[in-house]
């Protein structure tokens, strides 16, 4: 039997008032309009909890647009989950912050696009900056632990110092400096988002300085950019070992990008129980263990640490999800990554494609 799921990511909806061009949702999200009902979600939450899931992220899209969010938070809290709300904070007023606290919400993660109003609102495609700051204060006032999440890319990475100063001012407990990962919309906009090596080196230096000076006060996570590491990330802590994502329309995925793998037949929670999906489905068993691996992974000393890297990235860049992740310098496709990082040394004049329904319909 595989190890049980510990982490459940509930993508409640693809609807979102923001238009961030680095969104990891699928490009064709507009095609998937059906959303699970409240009862469907309760069934998923209960079955997942019984199997062992304990960390629960409400995400999306923007989870706040679901009218039943508070009800789902309350239900999850009663089941014993640690509940995380992953939100843009757009349209979140004090009443909602208090209502969710009463329902048992444990933590709120707010996204921030930049440290200046102009850049934040440009990247979000919506005027959100002032509102986000105000909501962050309300969240702290209600005694939640707060994570500020900033997705870093070539258009905002130069603001890292002022972003961290802002996090200190807002009394964030944790800051996630997440270098963009290239799936969905981010992959489509990759060349406009990938920072240069120099940009990254400068940012990393500043992040380290703040990690030291803020020790014991604010924890700063710096998510390493795999394009520049020469090493792949340990995808999902191992496929089908820890993470379970449920899409707004009810597909169960071993990783939140797996929907884009072709011919994969991810099972639906409308027709299958979570335990059946987790233990028996082809999708969840596909990359378990190492029998499926090709060279150079199969004989590699690192295979138990990185699990051949990210299969979605292998598919996106090489067309075959079972190839070694091209981010690895041992991959025969590593030149694809090098080509992208070389391009990132030059100016890029293409425009960002924003994540919205119009563009989704055009691209799908």
């Amino acid at each position, binding site marked *: 039997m595989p190890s049980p799921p510990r982490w459940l990511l509930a993508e409640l909806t693809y609807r979102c008032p923001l238009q961030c061009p680095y969104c990891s949702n699928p490009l064709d999200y507009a095609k998937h309009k059906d959303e699970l009902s409240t009862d469907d979600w309760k069934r998923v939450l209960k079955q997942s909890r*019984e199997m062992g899931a*304990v960390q629960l992220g409400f995400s999306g899209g923007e989870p706040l647009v679901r009218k039943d969010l508070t009800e789902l938070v309350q239900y999850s809290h009663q089941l014993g989950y*640690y509940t*995380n709300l992953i939100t843009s904070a757009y349209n979140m007023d004090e009443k909602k912050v208090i209502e969710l606290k009463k329902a048992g919400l*444990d*933590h709120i993660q707010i996204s921030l696009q930049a440290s200046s109003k102009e850049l934040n609102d440009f990247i979000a495609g919506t005027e959100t900056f002032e509102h986000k700051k105000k909501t962050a204060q309300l969240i702290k006032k209600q005694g939640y632990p707060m*994570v500020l999440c900033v997705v870093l890319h070539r258009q905002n990475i130069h603001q890292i110092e002022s972003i961290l100063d802002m996090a200190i001012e807002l009394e964030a407990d944790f800051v996630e400096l997440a270098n963009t990962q290239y799936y969905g919309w981010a992959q489509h906009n990759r060349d406009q988002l990938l920072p240069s090596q120099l940009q990254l080196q400068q940012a990393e230096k500043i992040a380290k300085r703040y990690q030291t000076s803020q020790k014991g006060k604010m924890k700063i996570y710096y998510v390493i950019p795999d394009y520049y590491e020469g090493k792949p990330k340990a995808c999902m802590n191992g496929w089908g070992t820890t993470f379970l994502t449920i899409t707004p329309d009810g597909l169960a995925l071993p990783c939140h990008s797996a929907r884009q793998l072709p011919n994969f037949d991810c099972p639906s929670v409308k027709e299958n129980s979570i335990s059946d999906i987790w233990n028996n489905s082809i999708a969840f068993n596909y990359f378990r263990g190492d029998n499926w691996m090709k060279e150079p992974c199969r004989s590699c000393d690192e295979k138990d640490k990185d699990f051949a890297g990210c299969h979605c990235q292998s598919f996106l860049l090489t067309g075959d999800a079972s190839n070694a992740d091209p981010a690895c310098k041992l991959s025969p496709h590593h030149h694809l990554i090098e080509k992208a990082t070389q391009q990132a040394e030059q100016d890029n004049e293409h425009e960002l494609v924003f994540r919205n329904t119009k563009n989704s319909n055009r691209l799908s």
Partner: protein
Amino acid sequence: MSLRTDQLIQIHSGYRLQWEEAQQIFVLLYPEGLIELNQSSAEILQLCDGQHKLADIIQTLESKFSTTGLENDIINFLTIALDNGWITQHA
């Protein structure tokens, strides 16, 4: 920040210690993360309830398991816990 012998120890307010029936272990939960605890770590953290100082914790566990010499292991674990922000101390 180092571990103080004269202060009470408690789990940090943003963290939650919880028994997991499905896995038969204790876990420490915090924003977007969890730590699966082995038995000795769980025994120590259960006593970090704001009612005990270091010496009480050592004495309670040595008596519970009818043993001696746990001091170093307990101090080592609590030092890591304090460094990681899992626990806090107050007078």
